[in-house]
């Protein structure tokens, strides 16, 4: 269906009100104007929050705010959709020179503008080193090391903020990528994990209100609401697999609209139907170094810094 084939150049009209469209929803094959697009996104995020019972009475929500577009949009949406919710923003400063300063400033401006309390925890405070220092000599492992350390840092700061839930800005594209990556790696535990189990053993439960909103729609919402800020890219090489999987998925989405949604929805159904399959449930114990819950002697983060070395530690880089 080609719009205005007369070549007038006007944007196709909103299917709901006739005003100029800003977005073509290729799944429902309809155009939406700015107001109807914004309302549509808000309605769907609200629906996701209800459907997965992401917020319950008495919850205190720690919103992981990196300062980037997804988490900035998330915080605005939560304030708007849940005006009475107990919200706190939490930011992890990994210590990445030339990158984090701009995003930290953006995060600070966002929380001041919304009047939401804001706490920051740095790798330097938590681990005694910045990510730049930690990664010296092994920048190729940046994403996996940063991921482990950030997960612990977010959990720590959410706990310090007294939160009952940790809310993250993962969008539909992120979720579809993760589903595919779990299959490509043959990661049985993650394939079987239901969305409700997202916090992982002993960690503050994590919820993702944007998990059904495509990345393009999150970005467009941010632009239309005047929240979009141009920020520097993280200087470290991103996981090669995730980048390739992203390209594959956006190519498929182009040719077959709705692919990412079907991947994620299919995974949710599958994981629920397979919930009776026994997992490798090793008993939980306290990490000998930091006390966080873990199934091994040391938690993943502390294992990275284990002076006795061993596979995967920072002391003996091997991968």
């Amino acid at each position: 269906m080609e719009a205005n084939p007369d070549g007038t150049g006007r944007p196709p009209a909103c299917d709901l009100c006739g005003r100029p469209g800003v977005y073509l929803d290729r799944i429902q094959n309809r155009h939406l104007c700015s107001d109807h697009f914004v309302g549509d996104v808000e309605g769907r995020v609200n629906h996701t929050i209800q459907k997965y019972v992401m917020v319950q009475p008495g919850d205190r929500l720690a919103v992981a705010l990196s300062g980037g577009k997804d988490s900035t949009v998330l915080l605005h949406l939560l304030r708007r959709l849940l005006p009475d919710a107990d919200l706190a923003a939490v930011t992890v400063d990994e210590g990445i020179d030339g990158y984090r300063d701009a995003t930290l400033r953006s995060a600070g401006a966002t929380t001041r503008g919304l009047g939401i309390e804001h706490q920051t925890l740095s790798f330097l405070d938590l681990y005694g080193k910045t990510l730049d220092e930690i990664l010296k000599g092994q920048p190729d492992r940046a994403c996996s090391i940063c991921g482990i350390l950030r997960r612990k840092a977010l959990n720590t700061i959410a706990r310090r903020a007294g939160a009952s839930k940790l809310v993250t800005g993962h969008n539909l594209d992120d979720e579809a990528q993760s589903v595919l990556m779990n299959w490509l790696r043959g990661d049985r535990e993650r394939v079987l994990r239901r969305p409700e189990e997202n916090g992982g053993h002993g960690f503050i439960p994590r919820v993702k209100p944007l998990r059904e909103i495509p990345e393009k729609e999150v970005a467009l919402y941010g632009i239309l609401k005047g929240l979009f800020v141009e920020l520097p890219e993280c200087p470290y090489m991103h996981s090669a697999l995730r980048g390739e999987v992203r390209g594959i998925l956006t190519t498929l989405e182009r040719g077959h609209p709705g692919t990412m949604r079907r991947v994620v929805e299919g995974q949710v159904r599958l994981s629920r139907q397979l919930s009776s399959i026994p997992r490798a449930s090793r008993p939980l114990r306290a990490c000998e170094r930091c006390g966080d819950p873990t199934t091994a002697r040391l938690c993943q983060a502390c294992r990275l810094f284990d002076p006795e070395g061993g596979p995967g530690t920072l002391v003996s880089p091997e991968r």
Partner: protein
Amino acid sequence: MKIHLQDGTARTFEGGPATVSRVLLSLGVNPVEVIASRDGKVIPEDTFLGPDDEIRIIRVSHGG
């Protein structure tokens, strides 16, 4: 028509009236990954562009 990319460079597209999508695909850009605007207003990807139009491309890729 002229297409301003996010890195500050610009490209031109010759070839008569075409939709935003067609122009993007001719530049090797997947429309799923970008948002296009004209005269400061976001436009749907199936908007027809005229020969004098200038569009601006914003990549929506992950910022963390």
